[in-house]
């Protein structure tokens, strides 16, 4: 399967120049770029690991792409995403977030159903990958 989190997951994987264009757009809006990575792609895993702090003073998209490339080199089989943070009052949140790296094989999620009272079912979503410990999930 292909996890479709992030702004552009229904498109073919973005090339480096396409990634640079999106980063440039974010910088032009005055947003700060951050790179994050994880091997736990559960849709409610909100805290991916930070590849350093968001780059608040960065003006040049090429610099951000260097960080993406370095993160890819360190974690080639992880999910990596680029986030853009907007500090404007009324937003103060992520404004753009897209995946720039995926493991070769994405095994996806199991839907666990626990039958409880009546016809009710309690649902849990579990990533097949996270059955292995962190760091050994997409080897």
């Amino acid at each position, binding site marked *: *399967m292909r*996890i*479709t*989190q992030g*702004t*552009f*997951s*229904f*498109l*073919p994987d973005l090339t480096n120049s*396409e990634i640079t*264009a*999106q980063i440039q*757009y974010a910088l032009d809006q005055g947003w700060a770029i951050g790179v994050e990575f994880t091997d736990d*792609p*559960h*849709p*409610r895993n*909100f805290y991916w690991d930070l590849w350093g702090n968001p780059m608040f003073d960065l003006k040049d998209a090429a610099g951000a792409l260097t960080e993406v490339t370095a993160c890819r080199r360190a974690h080639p089989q992880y999910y990596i995403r680029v*986030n*853009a943070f907007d500090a404007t*009052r*009324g*937003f*103060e*949140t*992520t*404004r*753009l*977030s*897209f995946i720039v790296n995926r493991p070769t094989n994405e095994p*996806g*999620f*199991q*839907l666990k159903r626990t039958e409880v009272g009546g*016809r*009710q*079912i*309690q*649902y849990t*979503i579990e*990533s097949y990958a996270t059955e292995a410990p962190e760091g050994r999930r997409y080897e």
Partner: protein
Amino acid sequence: MGSQAERYKSGVLPYAQMGYWDADYEPKQTDIIALFRITPQDGVDPIEAAAAVAGESSTATWTVVWTDRLTACDNYRAKAYRVDPVPGAPGQYFSYIAYDLDLFEEGSIANLTASIIGNVFGFKPLKALRLEDMRIPVAYLKTFQGPPTGIVVERERLDKFGRPLLGATTKPKLGLSSKNYGRVVYEALKGGLDFVKDDENINSQPFMHWRDRFLYCMEAVNKAAAATGEVKGHYLNVTAATMEDMYERADFAKELGSCIVMIDLVIGYTAIQSMAKWARRNDMVLHLHRAGHGTYTRQKTHGVSFRVIAKWMRMAGVDHIHAGTIVGKLEGDPNVIKGIYSICRDSFTKKNPEQGVFFDQDWAGLRKVMPVASGGIHAGQMHQLITYLGEDVILQFGGGTIGHPQGIQAGATANRVALEVMIKARNEGRDIWNEGPQILAAAARWCSPLRAALDTWKDVTFNYQSTDTADFVPTATPA
């Protein structure tokens, strides 16, 4: 006006002389201001008509009463202070009326509206009356909870950024069994939509009991989330005959793990505020379908404009509100719709008469409402939708998903691909308004569902004259 004794002599006085007209009045920061479009009966002076509206929406009755003199009555009299002819509409006037804050109960839309749109709308000396806009002072806004979730927190909860959200309403809206209904929900979510929605009149009918619907829909939501790795949702409509029924349905939705519930505007302002508090208490996104509004918002001369309803709903506290599509099948002049979207999404809405917005409105930190565009829209209009409506909006393609020739999943995929490719192009600096069709055509070369969608709906447009338009036209500025 002479002495107090003369003023309070039994009998009938013109409203303007009773103290409801004051051309020199300077509204206070804390006043609520209402702008009415009045159409006086033939022979009725517009200033007297405006004073009558001020009187009938505040303290006045048709005759002088001595009991006024037991009160600080001047304080409680609403004051009409400005009357302007409506451009290009003979016989109609914009009348500005200021109300002291003490006239209103804190945090109550019911109380606010009982005055502002109470008896006065049936008042005989007027042919017609329309509430066009209101300025709500910060002091009053601060007594309202507002949206339980708001755009920012909703996006963070859903983990969806940088693009409009995508939805669809299950069709046919009536008649499906719960199991078949859940099938539509699953297919649309798995294909790429973020939300599916009950329609306004899906409650608990003989063909589908509400509990059955909730159970099957949650199976569909969870199965689609597992299949995609994304947070998915279905607006479970909890609209019912009584508050007790609505709470029961909403509690069940929560128990099943739904992230969102839905209500209809027809449940009334008080019920909406109750559900807003329930939603805040239960970490639930609250979707409002504006069923019924067209009966009083659409005609320009009489009723309440939708921008006022949108203000009231932001105060009452809903997270989503249907606010027009511009390009779809339902009423929507581009300027008027932009004004309504500003009211939903701004931190500070600037006066903009060309968009029907007559006052600066400081929203005092009240959370933002996500506007929903729904009704007769399809993937081929993506560039127009994004240009007009921006990013913080939910685009709902019901027929445009479920009616896809290759099936519901394909319909959803077509919409999602069209959306992502258009956002990407916009961010790359392309002129999507003009290049939109080429951008879609290029994506359709590798995405066959999008190709089929474009082929099926390419010529569908709804070009009719709008009824509810702004009265001030943009003046051309020299280049």
